């Protein structure tokens, strides 16, 4: 291993330096917590001890609580805290690593969720299964349908009714620690080649059927969304062949990449921005042989216990200024033209947020049938148990 500082745990001086930067306001609280590792510790402690949640005296008609299910590293905690301060609603956050996991929870019932964040390809199925509510747009004055590109916002409308409002859009490619892997992989084919050769033991795949099976399918020259039994069997064989060379199978891959154990991982572009911010040698690659382009949405499940708080929460995050400040932390681009116009140059010219058009031409939106396809489900499960 090299002798650079990234391989060592944080030192006392570095900790104090980061702490002073935080005090001066030159880094956000979230960055401070992320860099020092205190964030993870606190997140784990807070959910284990709900009694420690601050109690607000002015809990109004919105209630004092909201259960929000989303993805890892997808929010600026400062904005969530700001919402709590303004409304008295404490936000309890659950992080999930796949849409299938969210669907399983909702199908089993009794989740107690108020707001959750599904991806484009799942919404139609949620409507069919009667698991999400039609949204009352009069309660979301900050949402402007006209300023959202229909390419991204389209899946929110099913049978002429609006069930969701967009959160962010992004791409699924891979991240490479260019100090450890110098061959510059460009495609999913390269990704699996490197995994089974020079990078053996250091690759992370998602614990998520869509992206992991999709990556293998692309590497074999098939569609990211294939549900063809033969193509899926080939993808399963490739995944199982690569399994002994993996570092981990997890959708929460930032810790593994930050610790230096992981050299390469399937990656959402916002995570790439977050990783590169702290570790410059992290390079994000939109694969030349395909991959995913996606939109995530805010949805309200049927029977959400804190409905008014849910609307207030979604409305708060539709505010263009809040969208921009969130994007500056999590690194995912808004779909809202009002927010795009507001974003600083550092975001609007960042190729990780806004890849070149020719790179995006090969990307596919996830297809609805992949969510419930029994073969894809079993391919993923048997790859993991192999």
């Amino acid at each position, binding site marked *: 291993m090299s002798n650079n500082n990234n391989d060592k745990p944080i030192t006392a001086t570095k900790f104090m330096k980061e702490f002073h930067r935080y005090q001066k306001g030159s880094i956000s609280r979230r960055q401070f917590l992320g860099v020092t590792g205190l964030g993870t510790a606190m997140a784990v402690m807070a959910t284990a001890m709900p009694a420690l949640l601050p109690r607000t005296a002015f809990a109004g008609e919105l209630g004092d609580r909201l259960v929000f299910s989303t993805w890892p590293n997808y929010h600026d905690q400062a904005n969530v805290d700001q919402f709590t301060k303004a409304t008295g609603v404490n936000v309890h956050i659950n992080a999930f690593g796949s849409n299938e996991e969210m669907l399983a929870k909702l199908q089993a019932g009794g989740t107690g969720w108020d707001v959750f964040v599904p991806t484009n390809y799942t919404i139609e199925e949620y409507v*069919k299964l009667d698991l999400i509510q039609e949204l009352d747009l009069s309660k979301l004055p900050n949402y402007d349908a006209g300023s959202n590109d229909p390419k991204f916002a389209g899946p929110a409308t099913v049978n002429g009714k609006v069930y969701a409002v967009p959160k962010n859009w992004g791409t699924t490619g891979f991240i490479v620690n260019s100090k450890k892997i110098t061959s510059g992989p460009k495609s999913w084919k390269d990704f699996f080649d490197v995994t089974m050769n020079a990078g053996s033991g250091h690759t992370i795949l998602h614990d998520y059927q869509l992206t992991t099976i999709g990556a293998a399918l692309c590497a074999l020259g098939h569609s990211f969304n294939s549900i063809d039994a033969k193509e899926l069997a080939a993808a399963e064989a490739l995944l199982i062949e690569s*399994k002994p060379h993996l570092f981990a199978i997890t959708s929460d891959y930032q810790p593994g990449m930050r610790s230096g154990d992981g050299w390469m991982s399937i990656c959402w572009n916002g995570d790439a921005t977050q990783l590169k911010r702290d570790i410059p040698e992290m390079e994000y690659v939109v694969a030349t042989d395909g991959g995913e382009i996606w939109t995530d949405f805010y949805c309200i499940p049927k029977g959400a216990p804190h409905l008014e708080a849910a609307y207030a929460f979604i409305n708060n995050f539709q505010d263009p200024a809040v969208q921009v400040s969130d994007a500056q932390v999590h690194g995912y681009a808004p779909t809202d033209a009002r927010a795009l116009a507001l974003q600083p140059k550092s975001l609007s010219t960042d190729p990780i947020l806004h890849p070149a058009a020719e790179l995006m031409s090969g990307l596919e939106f996830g297809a609805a049938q992949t969510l419930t396809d029994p073969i894809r489900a079993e391919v993923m499960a048997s790859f993991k148990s192999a």
Partner: protein
Amino acid sequence: MKEQSKSNRWLTAVLLTPTGLWFAFMLVLPLIVILVFSFGERAPVGGYAGGFTLEHYANLGARLKAFTNTLTYAPVGTLLSLLVAYPLAYYLAIKVNRRYKLILLVLVIVPFWTSLLIRTYAWIYILGGKGLPSILDWIGFEGVRLINTPGAVLMGIVYGYLPLMVFPIYVSLEKLNKSYLEASSDLGASPYKTFMQVTLPLSMPGVATGCMLVFILLMGEFLIPAFLGGGKVFFIGNALVDLFLQSRNWPFGSAISITLVVIMLITVSLYMRMTMRNSKTGVDESLM
């Protein structure tokens, strides 16, 4: 007298009712549901749809690796826990100064006050690249990988289950009449012989209880392999989490659960028969 025994019986029935109801609703009923599910079909969108089929039992081979992994790691993990716990329990029960005994016992319990999830999460950082390996790197052992290996999973198991093994053994050693040990050495037995022929047989009930507790819980473990094995060391518990919470194949998951229950019933009853016979002969030898 007669009156009283009648009211006693009535009282017993009243006192047992909550337990009985609890067992019926929390144990028997769910087991029946799982049994019924295991013969059903996977609904097109996942979950359970009625029907009767044996295909899920026929398909158990698809999770063979999970079964063999669990049936290897559980006994090995139990044995390792025993090897680590016995000396500790022995020290606490027999060797340590009375004044420190309580403090040391509390120290064994204290970690239990924090959730296993959090403690296991801490190990991710200790075993990860910036933890122990970076110290090893510094003293000259380069590129050592600890996290996401079978060794890390076994270490997590021993760490997580140690108190469950220590306490039963501690209790049986604590009850041991120390004059037996004196008698043994008075009669010329070496410390080794005393341990093998007096101490160990008399502590067998504690060993058996501890092993049983750890083994049974390990058969259903999923957290430690998922966190410290990076999802690469796959137990039956992980297969179940996957089938219920990701691929939503409830019938197949139910069939695996029922199979696991049957395997447990067989191994545990074999184990009990074995240890009961052993401890009986042990007691006979040491007391006769």
